[in-house]
């Protein structure tokens, strides 16, 4: 392993796991996400997603008040009442996620027991599951790990030989990957999460799991416990990563290598063409990735190997060394990988190094831009179709765009006074 791994602690500038609701509610439109927390939690989600106008809200918060904290109201009775009220308003909901928060965890509200009780009461009309999206336990995308982990016990058992793609994919990407796997010879491919929360895929000894996302440690563990085999591979970002990822599955399904090459070679060739203009833009540029989603290491690997960028520092909020091993092996010798964060010290390093591009959260993006440092805000990466060989060009474009934009508008917005006036 060539990377230089270090840990840092101190103030962090990251989202909590509740934020995962912002994309999960679209992936499973028949589900509702009920956060049990404070007004802060409610404010977080609506600040993130409230710019969209919802005729029918897909998420909400059961806000704890003083009576709940003082123990004057039985928290479980209260939660039952709120859930009933909600389900009366939205009878079409099929899965209700009770999402734990910092306040509900600090006061040790037992949401697991609450969901069991509600499940009994609702008799299968609505499935109630729970997971934690609290900031004290989870960082950003780890919320999805929690939500998927909560679904795993409900997956039907099956012995069928099949490939399971775990982790949220854009619809078009999912269709494309399923199509490609069929061409390679893997006929049964299913996804977790599914597009409807009621259509959960089966799992069992015949199931091989490919993780599409690097932040699914707990989901992977639970799938293993259900008898599935979880493959170890680089993640499907970029042409190279996606190819290795697909080949890993093909090996597990004992598909003939020449057939795999016949399908994937033309794709890779085309991806190289799509990448070329972005590679020209990105080659030699120095990049820092701040910790946010655990996508940073695979992204750094892609940007370095396929786009020619120089990795100054790669931050990650959490590093699952076993799962990330195939990625770390692909990083250049001595790459600085930081797990955790002291945001002020990290920003000092950014300012000292003055990289060409910083991948960071939105709390830092505009302030760094104002200091003259080009940024790519990282949240977009979990909202964009970036997986697969065919998406390599689009993925690279997400990073070349801010650089190109700066070149495009900077001269006109910051004119040099020495330029002759057109009227002169």
């Amino acid at each position, binding site marked *: 392993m060539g990377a230089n791994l270090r840990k840092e602690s101190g*103030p*962090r*500038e*990251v*989202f*909590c*796991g509740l*934020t995962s609701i912002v994309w999960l509610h679209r992936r499973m439109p028949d589900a509702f996400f009920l956060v*049990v927390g*404070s*007004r*802060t939690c*409610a*404010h*977080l989600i*609506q*600040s*993130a997603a*409230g*710019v969209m*106008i*919802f*005729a*029918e*809200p897909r998420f*909400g*918060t*059961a*806000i*704890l*008040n*003083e009576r*709940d*904290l003082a123990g004057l109201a039985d928290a479980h009775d*209260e939660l039952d009442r*709120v859930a009933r*009220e*909600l389900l*009366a*308003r939205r*009878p079409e909901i099929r899965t209700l996620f009770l999402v734990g928060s*910092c*306040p509900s*965890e*600090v*006061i040790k509200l037992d949401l697991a027991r609450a969901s069991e009780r509600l499940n009994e009461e609702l008799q299968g009309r609505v499935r109630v599951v729970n997971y934690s999206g*609290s*900031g*004290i*336990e989870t*960082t950003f995308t780890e919320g999805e790990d929690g939500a998927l982990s909560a679904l795993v016990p409900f997956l039907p058992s099956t012995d069928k030989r099949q490939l399971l793609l775990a982790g949220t994919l854009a619809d078009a990407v999912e269709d494309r990957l399923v199509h490609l796997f069929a061409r390679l010879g893997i006929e049964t491919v299913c996804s977790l999460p599914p597009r409807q929360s009621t259509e959960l895929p089966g799992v069992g000894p015949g199931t091989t799991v490919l993780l599409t996302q690097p932040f699914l440690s707990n989901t992977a563990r639970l799938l293993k416990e259900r008898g599935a085999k979880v493959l170890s591979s680089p993640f499907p970002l970029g042409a190279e990563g996606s190819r290795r990822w697909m080949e890993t599955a093909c090996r597990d399904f004992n598909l003939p290598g020449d057939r795999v090459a016949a399908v994937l070679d033309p794709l890779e060739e085309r991806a190289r063409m799509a990448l070329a203009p972005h590679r020209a833009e990105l080659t030699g540029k120095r990049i820092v990735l701040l910790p946010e989603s655990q996508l940073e290491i695979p992204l750094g690997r892609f940007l370095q190997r396929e786009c020619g960028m120089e990795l100054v520092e790669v931050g990650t909020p959490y590093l699952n060394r076993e799962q990330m091993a195939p990625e770390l092996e692909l990083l250049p010798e001595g790459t600085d990988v930081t797990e955790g964060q002291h945001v*002020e010290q990290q920003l000092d390093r950014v300012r000292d190094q003055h990289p060409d591009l910083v991948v960071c959260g*939105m*709390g*830092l*993006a*505009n*302030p760094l*831009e*104002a200091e003259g440092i080009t940024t790519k805000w990282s949240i977009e990466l979990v909202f964009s179709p970036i997986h697969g060989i065919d998406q390599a060009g689009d993925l690279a474009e997400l990073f070349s765009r801010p650089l190109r934009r700066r070149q495009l508008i900077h001269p006109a917005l910051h004119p040099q006074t020495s330029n002759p006036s057109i009227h002169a």
Partner: protein
Amino acid sequence: MQLTLWTYEGPPHVGAMRIAASMHGVHYVLHAPQGDTYADLLFTMIERRGQRPPVTYTTFQARDLGGDTAELVKRTVREAAERFRPDALLVGESCTAELIQDQPGALAQGMGLSMPVVTLELPAYSKKENWGAAETLYQLVRNLLKPQAPDQPQHDPKAWMAVGRRPRVNLIGPSLLGFRCRDDVLEIQRLLTVHGIDVGVVAPLGAEVSDIQRIPQADLNVCLYPEIAESSCSWLERSFGMPFTRTVPIGVGATHDFLVELHTLLGMDSPTGEEGYRCSRLPWYSESVDSTYLTGKRVFIFGDGSHALAAARICSEELGFKVVGLGTYSREMARSVRAAAKELGLEALISDDYLEVEAAMADAAPELVLGTQMERHSAKRLGIPCAVISTPMHVQDVPARNSPQMGWEGANVIFDAWVHPLMMGLEEHLIGMFRHDFEFVDGHQSHLGHRGGTDQAAEEHSPSPVVMSHEEQGPVWTADGEAELKKIPFFVRGKVRRNTETYARQEGRLEISSETLYDAKAHYKA
């Protein structure tokens, strides 16, 4: 527990952040779990600021809870004080930190820091954002000015005459994440300049600690945003004898009243009543014949107290709308909103429950909703045109262009913004006459540039169970009655449906035919 789909206000510590971020040289140490830094985005994305808010979070995690979180607070305070060297330090907790009770304010007070340290006690489970902002501003003003306060408050707002200078007032209340504060301040400054009045301190927006200390040097305080500034203005009145204005200058009439109040307090001659007509375009635009069709348009108003009150007055007195619903989420302003509603013959809705507001809106069946970002959700559901008049807001309501709500120009902005979502007059007439068009269909608003306008389904779609629950089984519409109802122009159809049902119930009719509809129409003279 309260089921909350949308919340009108954030937690109180976000209000405190608004004060800190609006000012210069004030830093805020916030004891909060990892993740609460989302609030930075309100400033960097919604307000689109090019610097980080002056807030240092302790960002504790689960593993820290087993250890010494108090030590973490002290370390964070020390690091923040050394790194940012603020002129004043605010120390407080977020909702989760409130549960573990580390007393961060007391810890910071005991650290021997060189700058003033203001401890914030913001009860996150009972109070909200605006209260947090008001309390923070009040504590800051009080802490910084207490040493200056005289034993006997004495202050003459007419002293400027004797000294031989122009009168000088402070503008108190504008802040980041307030509604159009940036441009309101410019507009009011311009207005005051025209009247020969200088602006002393603007706070908290753009103020430094030294500016706060200069507040008593002005002749009086202009309380622009009572939700944020009233407690500070009252304290300044009690402690220094400084009077403050009570009128919020939103709307032509209110701006005039504000000028009269201000001139009277300062001992100046009041301006003439025709200034508004001369300086704002709203009066003529509203008088011109193109606006005749606005008469009696039914409007539902909801927002913070100040903006809802101002909107009610503008709608009923300046635009000729009929206010059919008025409410606020600002409990502190409940009394004045109730009084205003009573004058309009309404019962004010005082609530922070989004579902209750949605139900009231559906019940009033307005043709226009003036509300917050949240009302846009319910208005979409109900298929009603909507304009935003108050926070909570989103990024589109922090526009690049000059767009005040206050003063003469504010009234211009308001005229355009509130009339825009309504169907234009000619289109409204033609859709009322010809209902079989292939392009200009029912509910379509071609000036908004999209096909189909309001979703046809929205009006037909049965009201939500919550809305329905308090209604008993009503009379049944016959096919003939339904067909007649469809002929009613889209935006008043909701009201006609309700009126007809109420009438049929009163008359004890079990069925509603086209004749019942016309009976009801005559009965209500509408």
